């Protein structure tokens, strides 16, 4: 178990370092920040002075060490556009992103798991076909387009929900569906195949032979073992929610970190974007690390694979 945790931790740390390295190298590749901060009439002394202030006079590896140290202290400097500290801006947007993520996560469980169960116990029935269709569309439909189409139907044509923004509960509906769409299909597929595997095991056959009713077999015996696999994928699920939030928040002008990333992209606000990327990467890698450790704790087989 310890070995497993150590290995996962090492991978996570190396990935984070790689992300920070990409961010750092790209920041230098994008040009000297002084060209943005100083105007054309700045003297050479001012130029050098600012270089010392920003640490640009030091060798690159020391600059990187300083960048890493600041990142560990959650200090990403100020936004180039509005001069606000990046960390404060991100934290301000965090609740909106977390709320939307939670809504999407709940949506994907509430729709995905029952659909998976239904399609597995009634194979080749109507519900099974619905499930397969959902799985196929989940893989094939780009979420940003789904979001826009839903805005057109439910907000523009029918006027049931607001087209964008974050107000009442009903402004959650479309963004949550857009964000959770891919995950619904994934959950459905996983639960379905887990249920089918579980229904095919010896202990189910024994229960049948003993005359246990079909309802009891499905709900008491099979289901318990079929809800574990979606847990394994929760790490991946949460990861897709983090990346997906950029798309969903952009489509619905949802005032979270994803929209902030999109705005930073459009305004070429590099310091803001690098803060967001490191923040998202930590969230993404941190959650999948936690989920993996939790799952390895629950299921010993994972530790040795």
């Amino acid at each position: 178990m310890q070995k497993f945790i150590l290995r996962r931790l090492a991978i996570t740390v190396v990935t984070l370092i790689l992300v920070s390295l990409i961010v750092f190298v790209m920041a230098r590749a994008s040009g000297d920040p002084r060209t943005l901060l100083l105007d054309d009439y700045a003297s050479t002394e001012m130029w050098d002075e600012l270089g010392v202030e920003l640490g640009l006079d030091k060798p690159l590896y020391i600059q990187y060490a300083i960048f890493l140290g600041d990142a560990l202290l959650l200090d990403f400097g100020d936004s180039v556009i509005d001069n606000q500290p990046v960390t404060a801006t991100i934290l301000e947007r965090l609740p909106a992103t977390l709320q939307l993520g939670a809504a999407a996560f709940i949506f994907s469980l509430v729709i995905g798991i029952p659909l998976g169960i239904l399609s597995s116990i009634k194979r080749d029935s109507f519900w099974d076909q619905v499930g397969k269709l959902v799985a196929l569309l989940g893989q094939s439909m780009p979420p940003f387009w789904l979001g826009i189409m839903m805005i057109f139907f439910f907000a523009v044509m029918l006027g049931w929900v607001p087209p964008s923004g974050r107000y009442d509960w009903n402004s959650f509906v479309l963004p949550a569906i857009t964000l959770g769409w891919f995950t619904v299909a994934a959950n459905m597929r996983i639960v379905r195949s887990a249920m089918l595997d579980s229904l095919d095991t010896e202990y189910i056959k024994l229960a049948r032979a003993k005359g246990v009713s079909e309802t009891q077999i499905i709900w008491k015996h099979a289901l318990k073992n079929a809800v574990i696999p979606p847990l394994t994928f929760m790490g991946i699920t949460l990861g897709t929610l983090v990346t997906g939030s950029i798309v969903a928040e952009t489509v619905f002008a949802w005032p979270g970190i994803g929209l902030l990333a999109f705005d930073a992209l459009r305004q070429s606000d590099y310091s803001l974007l690098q803060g967001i990327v490191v923040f998202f990467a930590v969230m993404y890698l941190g959650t999948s690390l936690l989920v993996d450790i939790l799952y390895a704790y629950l299921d010993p087989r994972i530790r040795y694979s």
Partner: protein
Amino acid sequence: MANTVLATRPPSAFNITQWWRKLRRRHVFLGISVFLLLLVAGTGILAPLIAPHDPHKGNLADQKLPPAWIGERTTTKTVVEFPEPGLSHRQISISRAQRIDPNAALGGEVQVILREGGNSRYLLGTDDLGRDILSRIIYGARISLIIAGVTLGIGGAIGTGLGLIAGYFGRLVDELLMRIVDIFLALPLVLVALVLVVAVGQSFFITTMVLVLFIWVRFARQIRGEVLQLKTMDYVSLAKVAGASTPRILFIHLFPGVINTLIVVATLQVSIVILVESTLSFLGAGVPPPTPAWGSMVADGRDFLADAWWISTMPGVAILLTVLSLNLFGDWLRDRLDPKLRQLN
């Protein structure tokens, strides 16, 4: 066994399940998919010959024309001297009415065209700059094809090469390469793409590079697993005993054995490449404008949903149908060529 519950149900007159199964059996969907894929590939390759209009040049007189099958939208307005404020949707001033119908008189009614009807010159309508959407979709197919081809070519070659090496040499080499694969799988690539774009700008090169980073690992993992099994075969040991060089064993003896896997992985990866590429171009981090990419076309239409829904809808339908066809075709190919892979996906 679970079907025993079903079997007791009386057969209904119209059984949607049976109907669906029959369709499946006849491979109708597969046929449609292959047809659509050939259509996308064909139009993409022959874009300059097929596209009815220039995808970059718009005609400002033909802005936001609906698709050809949609008729004009009209309304009847009462002719008055001056429309009352707030009632302009029902009233029209006499001077403007007479421009539409010279015989219009006060108190009478005229038909006012709210939106022009579709035009057979623009089958799928035009966008806000009067550019033909069909032509842009055709050129967009070309871009998607090129990007998918280049990324799969490079990513597939890197992934297959490293997969062969990792699987064949095993031990430390394998351990090292697979850890690198783990790291790349954990990398949030859409974010990395955004960083690259802000730092060095949008370009075809950046988009393909990000996608290559994204997909080589998937090839490497699959091929490596395949090679691990293949290298235990007798013919590989025999080749070694016969004194075949390592590159010879890798490429002449092992590589042909993984070609089926390679084809299946490549087909299923194309759909992912197209989805990720369209997401990047939707966010403005893909191939730079004015090159028509499907994702950025969807983004272009966002602001005109209320009066020109087709601008966003049509390119999205193109993405959906292409990816759907690729998935159906890929699943079929997988079952055909490599049933072992079924569990992996």
